[in-house]
């Protein structure tokens, strides 16, 4: 019943596309997919800690479940994303960092106002956003950055333990320091995180579970 589960937010946006421009939108998505593999901006975007996942997908009007063919007027662009942090932070970041890319993807959607300035863009997302009915989060006390860090920490520790068994104390100390430096940015705490309402705190505490391995 909420877009929030633990520290994650699920965003689903369905915006109508005119059927006769859908092929351009498809081509743009394909182009973006390729561009995303080579562009520095995209690779930096993936390093941002608060984006978990983002995907755009065209849903054709004849593929709607339960709707007879011919009933649905438009094709739709589905934007599905999971992120950590606030809705505003997420939309702000997209508008600030990749405005041209967003315009290229969404300009085929009916009445898209452009990704800059941000207020009309936010209005468009809100109007076309579908709230989440059911959302499950296995690690409510962790962001994906924390989960990735924990996996990295575990793997590094296992590797360190396996390869440094036979060192004398002085050599071990040196190796251990090097190991600590290699994992020093994977030592963040997990827990309830920022709250938006008093009930939000209670909910994330009930689900408990800061990430432990």
């Amino acid at each position, binding site marked *: 019943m909420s877009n929030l589960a633990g*520290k994650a937010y699920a965003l689903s946006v369905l915006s109508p596309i005119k059927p006769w421009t859908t092929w351009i939108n498809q081509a743009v998505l394909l182009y973006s997919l390729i561009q995303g593999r080579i562009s520095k901006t995209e690779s*930096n975007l993936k*390093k*941002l*800690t*608060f984006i978990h996942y983002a995907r755009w997908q065209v849903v054709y009007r004849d593929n709607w479940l339960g709707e007879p063919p011919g009933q649905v007027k438009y094709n739709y662009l589905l934007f599905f994303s999971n992120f*950590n*942090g*606030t809705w*505003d*932070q997420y939309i*702000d*970041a997209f*508008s*600030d*960092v990749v405005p041209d890319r967003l315009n290229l993807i969404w300009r085929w959607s009916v009445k898209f106002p452009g990704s*800059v*300035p*941000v*207020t009309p863009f936010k209005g468009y997302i809100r109007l076309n956003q579908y709230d989440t009915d059911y959302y499950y989060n296995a690690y409510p006390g*962790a*962001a994906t*950055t*924390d989960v990735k*860090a924990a996996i990295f920490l575990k793997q590094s520790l296992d590797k360190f333990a396996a390869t440094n068994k036979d060192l004398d104390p002085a050599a071990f100390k*040196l190796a*251990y*320091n*090097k190991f*600590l*430096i*290699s994992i*020093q*940015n*994977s*030592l*963040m*705490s*997990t*827990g*309830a*995180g*920022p*709250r*938006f*309402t*008093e009930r939000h*705190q209670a909910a994330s505490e009930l689900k408990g579970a800061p990430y432990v391995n």
Partner: protein
Amino acid sequence: MTTQAPVETLDLEDIQGFIMRSYPLPCARYVYVHIDDKQVNAARSTLEKLTELVTASTVWPDATGLEHALNIALSFKGLMALGLPTSSLISFPSAFAEGMARRKILLGDEGASDPSKWDKVWQDSNADPKKSIHLWLAVFAADESKRDSYYSQLAKLLGLGSGMSVLGFEDAGRLKDPTTQQYVNTEHFGYRDGISDVEFKGMPFPHVDGRGKLMPDGSWVPLATGEFLLGYPDESPENPLAPIPHLLARNGTFMVVRKLHQNVASFRCYLNEQSKKFPGGKELLAAKFVGRWRDGTPLTLSPDKQDPILADDVNRNNSFTYKDDRDGSRCPMGAHIRRMNPRDAMLFSKLADRRRIIRRGLTYGVHTPEDQPGNDTDEHGIMFLVMNSNFERQFEFVQQQWVHYGNDFFQGDDKDPLLGNNDGKGKMVIQGDSKTDRAPHICTGLPSFVNTRGGDYFFVPSLTALRQIALGIISTI
């Protein structure tokens, strides 16, 4: 690209002077005033008289010789008491209308910082409509006697028949050594404060690198005016959310008043104990908390020693990025200044540009010399003022996501070591250095060094808006 309207010059005579920069005046008195809404005409006429005394930005760029100054702000309840029409009142942002106490979950004001533990004047303001703080007056002066004599003039204006009454006040000012009576130039924890200031378009000062926004070519340019003043394009670029009518908003800003109590003994004790385990020693540990040595030298520029010449050089002491310090080996990832203004720490400096705040603060209470343990109980701290055009996007975001959380900097739930509401369970990783094999150091058991003792959200109107409010001619029709 963006099509921002150029802001060549601002109406300095219309903008309150303390928004631009801190006055070179070491003493302040912040006065909390209640308006009797049954005497609204008298209150408006008092406001008109006060407005004539307000210090505008025309004192800049060089305010030397200034002996005293006066600035004014109004709370949402204050605007109601002065009879603004509902159509205008409802156009103000909801965060402002709610006020600071009701934003406590977002701001981390819990435990010892909970509004139920604030100073009486702030608790009363929240609980008793007859004691609401409606008007905030700030008197700044060259010394205490000038402050007192200027204040006594004001107090006459606020006397019987003024439609206003003084609920209380708080004195603040630069700290002095108790024996020599010389200014010590630091706050209670021994850090030099007020080094970092923002630069926005139209400010009447020469450009300084490191204060505005970082461009892709590595240069620094002023931020958009609308990040700090209403009625101008912001970084989006669009005009920030502002009340109507336009003349009420234009050249005004929103201000956070926050009384931050400092637990001097807890801080000194923690620093002493923890530095026994920290190989770099006490001063380096103190520097790692903040990202600057206590004299203000940025760790990113000078990781091994204080550099007084660099610390004093306004053209260099803010001019740095984290490009060559991505892993935090110089300035830790979770250090105070890296959280308050991440510059390029998140790879895209644009992500920091819309979260900048103007910070004005003056210490209150008596300085405890460095060689003494101090105590937590005396009244000492910072009267912290923040100015921004959008509470939610700027101050509250920084407070919630960056001070009390740290995912954006790979810090998870670890909080700001100085400002975080840490409650004895706080942790900070001080990154080591792969070049020298210096191991990371983990500070655990961090207590709350700072507690909130009061505060609220205020609107700092332009002089035009103050006159309009005083004349009762605000209309949205």
